[in-house]
């Protein structure tokens, strides 16, 4: 039987999407190398999907793939809003075309929510589809320590000391005081949020937009959450 040794299962993953602002390969290559030089370990073998929406007609697909791989990323495929014909062309060239899951998963969640209370398994699946799973850290994170939740949310049951750093690709929840640095949506996720019971942070960053403590005076010492609104960090009281 074909499934005696293997089994196919669906799952959702977080992939980094490379957005192009030009079809000029030399410029793209230079920027890629510069980006990687900033944090070689972080990007090494990172799976990447290239969004070709704007340049679907003009770009050299094979050369683009080579560029991405030369910068030591793992090339997964192409994505973007493109016409059916273009999508077929990409596939004919031997590359995979990846659809974003946003629409389909939203529909699934809506459908599954009808039987949430009666079917815990379906419930769990719905939550998984909504996004990241949680990495839970018990206890205080002390000065000099760093915790990173890769492709996950980070939940800290305890405080984050001044001089400590917490990083997540998803959201950060601190059930305690946030006195150190919190970096949410670390690999490009502008819906990421930071929640804490007491805001006294040295720095909060969401998808690269950051606040130093001087920007937090209004909510200093309060239970608060921070998010991005139109590419601006905003903070509000919890409750």
């Amino acid at each position, binding site marked *: 039987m074909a499934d005696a040794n293997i089994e196919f299962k669906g799952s959702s993953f977080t992939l980094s999407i490379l957005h192009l602002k030009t079809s000029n390969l030399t410029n793209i290559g230079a920027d890629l190398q510069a980006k990687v030089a900033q944090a070689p370990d972080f990007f090494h073998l990172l799976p990447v999907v290239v969004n070709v929406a704007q340049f679907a007609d003009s770009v050299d697909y094979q050369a683009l793939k080579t560029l991405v791989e030369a910068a030591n990323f793992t090339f997964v495929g192409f994505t973007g809003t493109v016409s059916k014909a273009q999508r077929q062309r990409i596939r004919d060239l031997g590359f995979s075309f990846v659809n974003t899951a946003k629409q389909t998963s939203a529909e699934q969640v809506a459908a599954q929510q009808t039987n949430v209370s009666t079917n815990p398994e379906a419930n769990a699946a719905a939550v998984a589809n909504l996004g990241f799973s949680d990495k839970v850290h018990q206890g205080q994170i*002390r*000065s000099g320590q760093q915790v990173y939740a890769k492709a996950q949310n980070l939940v800290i049951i*305890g405080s984050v000391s001044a001089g400590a750093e917490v990083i997540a690709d998803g959201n950060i929840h601190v059930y305690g*005081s946030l006195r150190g640095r919190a970096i949410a949506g670390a690999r490009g996720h502008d819906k990421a949020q930071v929640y804490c019971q007491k805001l006294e942070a040295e720095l909060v960053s969401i998808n690269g937009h950051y606040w130093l403590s001087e920007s937090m005076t209004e909510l200093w010492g309060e239970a608060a959450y921070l998010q991005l609104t139109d590419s601006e960090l905003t903070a509000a009281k919890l409750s």
Partner: protein
Amino acid sequence: MARIIVVTSGKGGVGKTTSSAAIGLGLALKGHKVVLIDFDIGLRNLDLIMGCERRVVYDFVNVINGEASLNQALIKDKRVSSLSILPASQTRDKDALTKESVGKVLDELSQSYDYIICDSPAGIEAGAMMALYFADEAIVTTNPEVSSVRDSDRILGMLASRSRRAEQGLEPIKEHLLLTRYSPKRVAEGEMLSVEDVEDILSIPLLGVIPESQAVLKASNAGEPVILDTESDAGQAYQDVIERLLGETVDFRFLVAEKKGIFSRMFGG
């Protein structure tokens, strides 16, 4: 099996050696068998505070190197027979200590003592890591100021990640906060952090608050640990620490500035 207690801080000069001496002697006065180990290789301070500097023949490094037996190196305290001191070497450098050799010495001491008190050097380098590695409990010595609290926080991170208990996945080191050189007057004036501030930041149980006191310097110069000065505020505060270490509940004292008498107030004294 002995309780191995490290007295540590990160920041230097906060009162680790003063506290190690007072606590070691205090526990011995209660009838426990105690050995004090000076891990501050190269500086050698504990023997001065204990008043036994002129009786040092062999030291910790001699024992580690097999040049002397433990019995030859241990100095018996003249005041309390159940207390011994293992002095540090003044001439060797800190690299003399390895985990393996220190572990062997501690194992041997564990057979015959109730408490092993390790006086840590300052910093977060190899010497301080060695002093905390084998600990069952830690007395995190902190002054009520931001930099000292930050360093103590750092050390708490090390206790939770770099100790033997952490590496072997055993029950974590039991942490105690010892606030030293506390001056209620300066706290009231906003120049120093309060007990509540420090507790809030470090969130570990408070073992004691030792007031800033003239008695400490006097005691150090005399080679008589301040706990022997039963009239002094610092001596009494260390006494309370001993009770708490032994499981008693004791109210905290010396937390508020002494009210001045009517005369001193009138005459501005």
